[in-house]
C-alpha cells in the first residue's frame, strides 16, 4: 500500500506522488492536526488542553487554528502546572471526556509522573474495571538546535515500564493520524511520543478518518540477511542504512515498531527466524530501553535462530550536549546502523 511506504524526504515523496495523482500528501504535523480536527468535529467529548495549544505556533503547527475553529472551551491553553493539568485531564477522562493533553516536550513529563504512574495507569486495576481513563498525552522529543540536556530527552522507556499505560511512537504521517485516533478511542491512558525531526516528513494520508492499530509493528522493507527494528526517527536512519548495505549485497529487513508498549513480539520473532540477525535502533538510551526488551523477547522465544549476538544502536550513556559540535557526535545515525549490522555478519 502506498501509505505503508517510508519516504526519506519531501522530494522523494513528490516524485512518487507524480506517478499516483489520486493520492494526497500531508506532512506529519498536518496529519496530526487533521486527526485532532476530525475528532473535535465528530465527538463533543474530545478536547485539547496544554501549554500553548492555542498560540500562534500551535505546538509546532500540530494544533494551529483549532481554538479558532472549535473555541477556547475545547482547545484550552493552560497555566504552567504540569502535574495538576495532567490530574485535571485524568479527572475529566474518568468523568466521560476524551482529553488530548499536550506536554510540548517529553522533558516536562517527569513533573507529571505521579498523576500518570500512580493514578492514570492504576485506576482501572485498583477499582475492578469500574473506571476507565481514556486519556492521550501527546509529547514531543526534540533533537538539534541546541535543545540540550533538559529539552531533548527520549523518555519512552520510563513509560513503557508501567503496566496500564500504552506507549506509541509513530514515524510516518499516515501512522501519526491513524494512531492518534486509535489512542483517543483506546480506553487506556496512551503516551503518544512524536519526534520533531519527523514533522516535515511527507507521506500519503487519506482524508477520511481512520485508525492504525496500537500494538502492531510493520515491515517497511523486506529482507533476508538481518532484521533492523527502528523506532520513530530511527526508522528513517534504518532505511538509509538498509539502502547502503544493499549496495554491499546485504539485504536488511526493516521493521518500524510503531508501538513500544504493548510490543509486537510476533512480527519481530518471525523476522529473526528468517534472518537470524538482529539490530535495534532506538532514539533513546540503551539501558533498560525498548532494545533491551526486544532482544530479551527474541532470546526467550527464538534463541536458537540467532546466528550472531544481537546489537543495539542508541545514544551514548550521558545527557544531551548543547554545543553543535558535540551534538553532531552525540546522535547516532545510518552509519552506526550499517556498522552494527555488519558486526552481526562478522564483517
Amino acid at each position: 500500500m502506498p501509505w505503508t511506504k517510508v519516504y526519506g524526504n519531501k522530494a522523494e515523496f513528490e516524485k512518487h506522488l507524480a506517478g499516483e495523482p489520486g493520492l494526497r500528501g500531508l506532512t506529519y504535523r498536518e496529519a496530526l492536526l487533521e486527526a485532532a480536527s476530525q475528532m473535535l468535529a465528530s465527538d463533543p467529548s474530545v478536547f485539547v488542553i496544554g501549554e500553548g495549544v492555542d498560540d500562534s505556533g500551535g505546538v509546532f503547527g500540530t494544533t494551529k487554528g483549532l481554538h479558532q475553529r472549535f473555541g477556547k472551551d475545547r482547545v484550552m491553553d493552560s497555566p504552567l502546572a504540569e502535574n495538576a493539568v495532567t490530574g485535571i485531564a485524568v479527572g475529566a477522562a474518568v468523568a466521560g471526556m476524551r482529553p488530548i493533553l499536550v506536554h510540548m516536550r517529553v522533558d516536562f513529563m517527569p513533573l507529571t509522573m505521579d498523576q500518570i504512574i500512580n493514578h492514570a495507569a492504576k485506576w482501572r486495576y485498583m477499582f475492578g474495571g469500574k473506571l476507565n481513563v481514556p486519556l492521550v498525552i501527546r509529547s514531543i522529543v526534540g533533537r538539534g538546535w541546541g535543545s540540550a540536556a533538559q529539552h531533548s530527552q527520549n523518555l519512552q522507556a520510563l513509560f513503557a515500564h508501567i503496566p496500564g499505560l500504552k506507549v506509541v511512537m509513530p514515524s510516518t504521517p499516515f501512522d501519526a493520524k491513524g494512531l492518534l485516533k486509535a489512542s483517543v478511542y483506546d480506553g487506556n491512558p496512551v503516551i503518544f511520543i512524536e519526534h520533531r525531526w519527523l514533522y516535515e516528513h511527507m507521506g500519503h494520508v487519506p482524508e477520511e478518518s481512520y485508525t492504525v492499530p496500537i500494538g502492531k509493528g510493520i515491515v517497511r522493507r523486506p529482507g533476508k540477511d538481518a532484521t533492523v527494528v527502528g523506532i520513530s526517527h530511527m526508522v528513517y536512519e534504518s532505511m538509509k542504512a538498509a539502502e547502503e548495505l544493499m549496495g554491499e549485497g546485504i539485504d536488511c529487513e526493516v521493521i518500524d515498531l510503531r508501538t513500544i508498549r504493548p510490543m509486537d513480539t510476533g512480527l519481530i520473532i518471525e523476522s529473526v527466524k528468517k534472518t537470524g540477525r538482529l539490530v535495534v535502533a532506538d532514539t533513546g538510551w540503551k539501558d533498560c530501553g525498548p532494545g533491551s526488551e526486544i532482544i530479551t523477547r527474541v532470546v526467550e522465544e527464538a534463541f536458537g535462530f540467532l546466528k550472531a549476538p544481537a546489537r543495539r544502536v542508541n545514544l551514548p550513556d550521558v545527557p544531551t550536549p548543547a554545543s553543535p559540535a558535540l551534538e553532531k557526535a552525540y546522535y547516532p545515525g545510518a552509519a552506526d546502523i550499517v556498522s552494527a549490522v555488519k558486526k552481526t555478519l562478522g564483517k
Partner: protein
Amino acid sequence: MDIIGSFDVKFLQIINEAGVCDAALLPSMEAPDLKKIFETMILVRTFNQRALSLQREGRIGTYASVLGQEASQIGSALALEKDDWIFPSFRESAVLISRGYPMWMLYRYWMGDERGMKAPDDMNIFPMSVPVGTQLPHAVGAAFAMKYRNDRRVAAVYFGDGGSSRGDFHEALNLAGVFKSPVIFLLQNNQWAISVPRARQTAAATLAQRAFGYGIPGIQVDGNDILAVYRATKEAADRARGGEGPTLIECYTYRLDDHTTADDASRYRRKEEVEEWREKEPLLRFRLFLEKKGLRTKEYEEEVAKKALEAVDKEIEKAEKFPPPDPADIIRYTNFELTARQKTELKEFGWEK
C-alpha cells in the same frame, strides 16, 4: 502607599459547645432532617467503633478512624445533591456512609479488597485517595467536564491540612479559579498530619485565607458544628451551580484518634490537648441542641443506637461472608482489553477459566 486589596477571613459557627444556636444562621430544616443528621452521626460512630474493634481482633487490616470529624464529613456530604461528585481521601468513611455507600463494602475495603471501592453505579463517588492531595486535580477535571456539559453538578473534594501543603493543592486551587470550575474544596483541618502539627504546615494564620491568593472565596467553619458545615457547603454548592466557581472551606476540627491503627499519637501529642478537644466534639453539642429543641430523649437515642448496632453487625457479617476475589482479577482489569502478555500470563499462572 495605597491599599490595593484587603481580605477578611470569616469564621462560621451556628451551634456552640453548650448546644446554643444562633437562630439567624440556622439552615431551614425540619425535625426529620435534624433527626436524620443525628441518626447518621450515631451510625457513623458505631461503624467506626466496630472497625477499630475488628482491627484489634485481626479481622481487618489498617483503619483510619473518623472520630471527632463526623460533623465536618456528614454536614458537608448531606448538603450536596444526589448526583454531585465526591472525591474522598482515605479518612472519609463518614462522607461515604452519609451518601448511602454500602457499609459492608467499606469494611471489605479495609479488609484489603479492591472491590470495596467499586462504588454502586448510582453513586458518583470516586475511590478514596490514599496518596495525599492527589485527588484535588481530579475533582477540578471532573468539574471541568460537568461545566462543559452544562449539567449543573458540582464536585466536592476532601483532603486534610497535610494535603494543603502539597503542590497539588496550590495548582488545583489556582486552576479551578482560572477555569471557574464548579468545585468545593473541603479542607478537613484536623490539626495533625500524622505527627506533624498544623503549625508546621504553614505560617499562615488560617488555611482558609490561602483561597484569596487564587482569587476564590475561602471560609473557616467550626468543623465540629454540623449545621455550620452544612450551611457553608450548601452556599458553596449554590455558588458553583450558579456558575460562580470554586470555594475553599476549612473545616476546623480535630482528629481524636490515632492517624490510623498503625500509629500511636501519644508519642507526639499531649493528652491534655486531646482531652480539651474531646469536650468540643461534634456529637455532644448536637445532642444538646436537639434536647433544647425537644427532639432528643434518652429512649430515642437508645433506640437509634440499637438500630445502628444491628445494621452495622449485619454489614460486618455480609463483608466477612463475601467470597474472596478470583486470582484472575489480578490480570483482568488493568487494561481496557488484555494485552498479549497479559493473555499469556493468565495461561502461565493457571488462572484462565
